[in-house]
């Protein structure tokens, strides 16, 4: 189903030819180690590339070019996959069969990507200063705006504290101070450097044959002096000292986040058991956490758990009444204890299997999901196709799921609470 084309050393194109869709997608990712000294630059880079080219010198020119391609979209793509960070572009475009006669989509889009990647307007040996400065402001405001969604904010704070000694504790978009320190020349040099040394992953989903796409994209990264270095393999979580934290804010609902560690990562055989355990425990509306904290005890509106397989972390987050923190935490831990004892029914295990299998089966139903699954799986060393993954999930037994629960250790608690001192209304 997925064809892999090694276009050049360190440049891989994966293609999924599928005529069912009305749109296609293409992603281009430069793969980097997640590191404090470059995370912010990698996050900023694609936004600067998308500001203009020598031929389409401003945002309006860029959008008009995309409008001509039937409303194609090119957006910055910055992912964190375990110890790696990727930086690049993601395009979505209408399938060829809906165009007016004679119009093409993929070929002009490839030309346009070439232009975005390699024809940035330069000044004084760097990117244009006004582009860089305004995108820095935007990036800083998106970092700041994570505060607006309290659930996301609280989860970010938990992971930051829990993974202080690990690359996983670095925020995906870098820290504000690092963004501030970026200058146009430094950013351009960094870009030139990573173009020459990074492994590059491209992924195409659409109706065109793989060979055609390969021929179209091969010239993109045929750069003189390019010597890609392989990346260090993914690592397990390097633990930091455990802790308990409370922060107060002007909120009416508290957010309780708990972080657990487990040696089980997606590189280990017990991975499928851990995924299932996570679903039984806190994944979705039939989970133990949802059924007990929300449905039976009305302790919260939202509650759920998440498993980060690349690192071996399970987190729980709950939106609760600030006065009910103790009660909620006890109940969250009690439900985990029940999982450890294997106190879940065959139905609960089967339902978890069905849910996971169903979502894996549906992977092939949308270009975005196909790209997301394979592009991430490859990088995180999850060596399973959705089909093989389904097999592994089907084979998990109840004792295996309970054993996965036994490996979970509470590491860090973070509570975002309401401020108790009154303050003047504005």
């Amino acid at each position, binding site marked *: 189903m997925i064809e892999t084309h090694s276009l050049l050393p360190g440049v891989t194109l994966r293609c999924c030819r599928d005529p*069912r*869709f*009305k*749109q296609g997608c293409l992603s281009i990712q430069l793969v980097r180690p997640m590191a404090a000294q470059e995370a912010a630059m990698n996050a900023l880079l694609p936004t600067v590339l998308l500001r203009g080219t020598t031929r389409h010198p*401003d*945002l*309006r020119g860029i*959008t*008009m070019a*995309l*409008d*001509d*391609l*039937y*409303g194609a*979209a090119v957006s910055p793509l910055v992912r964190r996959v375990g110890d790696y960070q990727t930086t690049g572009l993601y395009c979505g*475009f*209408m399938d060829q069969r*809906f165009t007016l006669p004679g119009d093409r989509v993929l070929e002009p889009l490839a030309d346009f990507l070439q232009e975005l990647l390699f024809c940035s307007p330069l000044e004084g040996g760097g990117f244009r200063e*006004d582009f860089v400065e*305004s995108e820095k*402001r*935007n990036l800083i*405001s*998106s970092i*700041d*705006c994570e*505060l*607006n*969604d*309290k659930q996301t904010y609280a989860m970010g704070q938990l992971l930051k504290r829990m993974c202080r000694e690990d690359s996983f504790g670095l925020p995906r978009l870098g820290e504000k101070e690092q963004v501030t320190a970026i200058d146009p020349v430094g950013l351009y040099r960094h870009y030139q450097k990573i173009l020459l040394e990074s492994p590059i992953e491209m992924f195409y989903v659409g109706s065109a044959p793989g060979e055609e796409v390969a021929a179209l994209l091969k010239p993109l990264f045929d750069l003189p002096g390019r010597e890609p270095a392989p990346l260090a393999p993914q690592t397990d979580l390097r633990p930091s000292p455990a802790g308990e934290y409370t922060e107060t*804010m*002007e*909120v*009416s*609902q508290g957010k309780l986040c708990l972080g657990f560690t487990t040696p089980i990562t997606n590189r280990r055989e017990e991975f499928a058991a851990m995924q299932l355990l996570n679903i039984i425990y806190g994944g979705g*509306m*039939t989970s133990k956490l949802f059924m007990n904290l*929300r*449905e039976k005890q*009305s302790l919260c*509106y*939202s509650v759920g758990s998440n498993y980060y397989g690349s690192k071996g972390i399970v987190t729980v987050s709950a*939106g609760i*009444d600030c006065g009910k923190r103790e009660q909620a935490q006890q109940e969250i831990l009690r439900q985990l204890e029940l999982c450890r004892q294997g106190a879940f029914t065959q*139905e609960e295990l*089967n*339902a978890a299997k*069905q*849910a996971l*299998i*169903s979502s894996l*089966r*549906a992977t*092939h*139903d*949308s*270009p975005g999901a196909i790209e997301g699954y394979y592009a991430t799986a490859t990088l995180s060393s999850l060596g399973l196709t959705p089909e093989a993954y389904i097999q592994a999930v089907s084979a998990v037994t109840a004792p295996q799921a309970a054993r996965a629960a036994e490996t979970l250790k509470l590491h860090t608690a973070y509570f975002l609470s309401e401020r108790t001192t009154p*303050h003047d209304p*504005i």
Partner: protein
Amino acid sequence: MIQFDYPELDETLYQEILPNGLTVAVVPRRGFARSTAYFVTGYGSIHNQFRLEGERYQAPAGVAHYLEHKMFELPGDRDVTAEFAALGASVNAFTSYDMTAYYFTCTQAFDQCLRLLLEFVSTPYFTQESVDRERGIIDQEIGMNLDAPDSVIFDNLMAALYENHPIRIPILGTRESIREITPEILSLCHRAFYSPGNMLLCVIGDVNPKSVAEIARQVLGDEKRPVGERETAWQEVMTPVEAETVCAMEVAMPTFSMAFKCESTGAGSEAIRREMVADLAAEALFGESSELYLWLYEQGLIDSSFGGGFETLEGCAMLCVSGDSNDPRAVREAILQEGERLSQEGISQEEFLRMKRSALGRRIRGLDSMDGTCFRICAYHFSGFDYFRFPEIYRDIRREEIQEFLGRVVRRERCAISIIYPLDGEERQ
């Protein structure tokens, strides 16, 4: 069933109205693993005043949403969510201003899932105890929205724009109004609006259309039941109640949402045409390819969070735009000025064609999303239009219409803005 083909979109739609009044719409998607079914009533948070069998009723705010939560329980302690999970499917629901939708997605056991969906949505079962328990959950949900800037800013804007239209009240109701909701009120609203004649079943996936209609008929029967008459004659002038509404919250930078009041679009294909004209006008005024967007972006007045479009609902319509900005009022002034300029100068034919092509392409791409497509088919169904006819509507729109819309709508006297400022720095440590 009647088969409608849309070769331009590579789509086929099967439709039938059952003897009980239910509309069944099926869009087959061969070769896809996932199927999804939406069972939807044209009843939402704005329909609190209605008549049923000669009586007139006024329900508390938030009842449509409360009812949605309570539908998931069945007699005999049956838990609907768990039953779907056991079939390997996932079920969910949402309540909007004018619809309540129940839907599932599955990759197997479609027929069983469909039966279960139809059964639980048409079975009212409300005990005092479970209605009381739900109040705690909805209270938390309201609390969550009160902490969410996006939701506060929008609710504030609606309250500033509209004097009488119930869009000014949050979909969830208020902590006070939900205290008035009883099992009897829930039963009454269910009886009024969950009759098949007020509902649509929309299915997308690798399914047999005839068997979908047959299952619906078996589960729901042939009886036609009365449907509540919604009282929707809300009087609105085109001037907002307040031009500005401002508050402070835990946000990182000021954020705003503004809107221009528009005449209601009515129903049917004329309504959709008006909507698409307004969408293109929004694109021309402040879309990413507009001169205004470029100017605001380069001035640092907006960032990529900026965007907007035309919103329409029974009895009201508006051109909305929102985003983060350190100077929301300057953004408003720039939009007003540019609106005036465009209404005098218009846009070039070349720009107009490019915009249409782009809008059409984006809509075609959007068809790949089963949920998005189901949602649009349902929403347009209740306003009396077949969604898949959008290409012909686009073809028919002329550029003068864009100019006329902007001249009529983008005016200071129609505008309201809602702003949230950060709590001041000192208080935030």
